[in-house]
């Protein structure tokens, strides 16, 4: 038998459970990552070195090292220190789900911060001039004009980041979580059919990727309609 369909069909429930885990990891990482990315992105456009440099160093170090290294540092590395093991945070830091979410959130925050900073820098000067002309304070300028405009225009690039993040969550299987890849690993070792197991996982990811692309197209139509080419 060249391709064993029955094994794939029998283990579909396991894969669907994996999809839920993958989506949970993705949503948690994105929510916390974006929450962290907004202040970081604002720091990255600051002209004051004291403000800009720490954010630059953070994004540079995170973007320059592999995700696997960051995950290992948190999950295996931190246990080296007695102080960490004695702290109140240890029950969380020894938990694979928590570590995976934390590592993913930190990773995506660095990439999203750079995307947001790039978007903030390319804001049309007229928008700022108009806000100043009506007498907005600095805070109001950021809250009402700069951030909404930058976040909208960051949407196409951010959609790429979200898809990269979906793919990154597959690393959770390395720290024992049963996401889609983890389900495939289980199936592969149970039946010794790695080809069927991983091709199915690949199809699930492909499906999720297409859904995300579609959702972002809709989001762009909703929030970036003013930049869309005019219809004839």
């Amino acid at each position: 038998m060249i391709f064993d369909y029955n094994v794939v069909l029998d283990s579909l429930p396991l894969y669907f459970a994996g999809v839920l885990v993958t989506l949970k990891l993705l949503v948690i990482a994105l929510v916390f990552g974006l929450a962290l990315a907004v202040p970081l992105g604002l720091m990255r456009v600051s002209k004051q070195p004291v403000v800009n440099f720490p954010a630059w160093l953070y994004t540079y170090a995170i973007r320059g090292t592999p995700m696997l290294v960051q995950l290992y540092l948190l999950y295996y590395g931190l246990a080296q220190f007695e102080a960490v093991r004695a702290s109140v945070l240890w029950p969380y830091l020894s938990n694979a789900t928590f570590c995976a979410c934390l590592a993913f959130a930190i990773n995506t925050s660095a990439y999203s911060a750079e995307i947001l900073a790039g978007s903030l820098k390319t804001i049309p000067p007229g928008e700022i001039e108009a806000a100043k002309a009506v007498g907005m304070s600095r805070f109001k300028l950021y809250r009402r004009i700069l951030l909404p405009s930058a976040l909208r225009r960051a949407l196409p690039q951010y959609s790429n980041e979200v898809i990269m993040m979906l793919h990154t969550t597959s690393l959770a299987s390395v720290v024992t979580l049963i996401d889609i890849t983890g389900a495939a690993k289980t199936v592969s070792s149970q039946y010794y059919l790695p080809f069927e197991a991983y091709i199915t996982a690949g199809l699930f990811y492909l499906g999720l990727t297409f859904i995300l692309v579609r959702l972002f197209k809709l989001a762009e139509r909703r929030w970036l309609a003013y930049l869309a080419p005019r219809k004839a």
Partner: protein
Amino acid sequence: MLNGYGATILDGVWLTLQLSLLSMAVAIALGLFGASCRLSPVKWLALLGEAYATVIRGIPDLVLILLIFYGGQDMVNRIAPLLGYEDYIDINPFVAGVGTLGFIYGAYLSETFRGAFMSIPKGQGEAGMAYGMSPLRVFWRILVPQMIRLAIPGFTNNWLVLIKATALISLVGLQDMMARAKSAGDATHEPFTYILAAAAIYLAITSVSLLVLRYLERRYSAGVKAMEI
């Protein structure tokens, strides 16, 4: 240095670099091929290139690596007996790593190269044709040299992502820098120290790459007027 594990980790660095460079060579070849397929007027070739780029970019690297390394090995050994080959075929993780990463990043590069080819003014290729060059010669003499300049920013990105993706090959048993740092950490019960050292080396490699590629970008753009907006 590092309780005597320094030397083994440095050996791993060399392996990581070899893996990255060879994979990139494969990826460039596949990327060029993929891009020319996608730009080809032959419909089924264009469709094939499009399918390659879309499917590979839609699946995580880790899953593709596991699929090709374990699944590919399994498939080869299921098909080989049908062709009358009885011995068990064992795939070396380094060879599988180069093939897999090259195959994955070929898809990403085909996107970069396609964009770069499309930005070359059409007249360039037409002028080559008018001189009586064959299509292949127009491709190599006229289009590729101009495409390089346009492709460098995208290429830089892909190269950095590729270096970081090599760490994943440690998961299928290649003794690269990542795997060695991990096992040194396990052996000495000081995982943080060793993994942090690996992180520092990755950061150094990506930083040097960035500097070199920025220099190349400036060099290749020497004849192009920079516009300040």
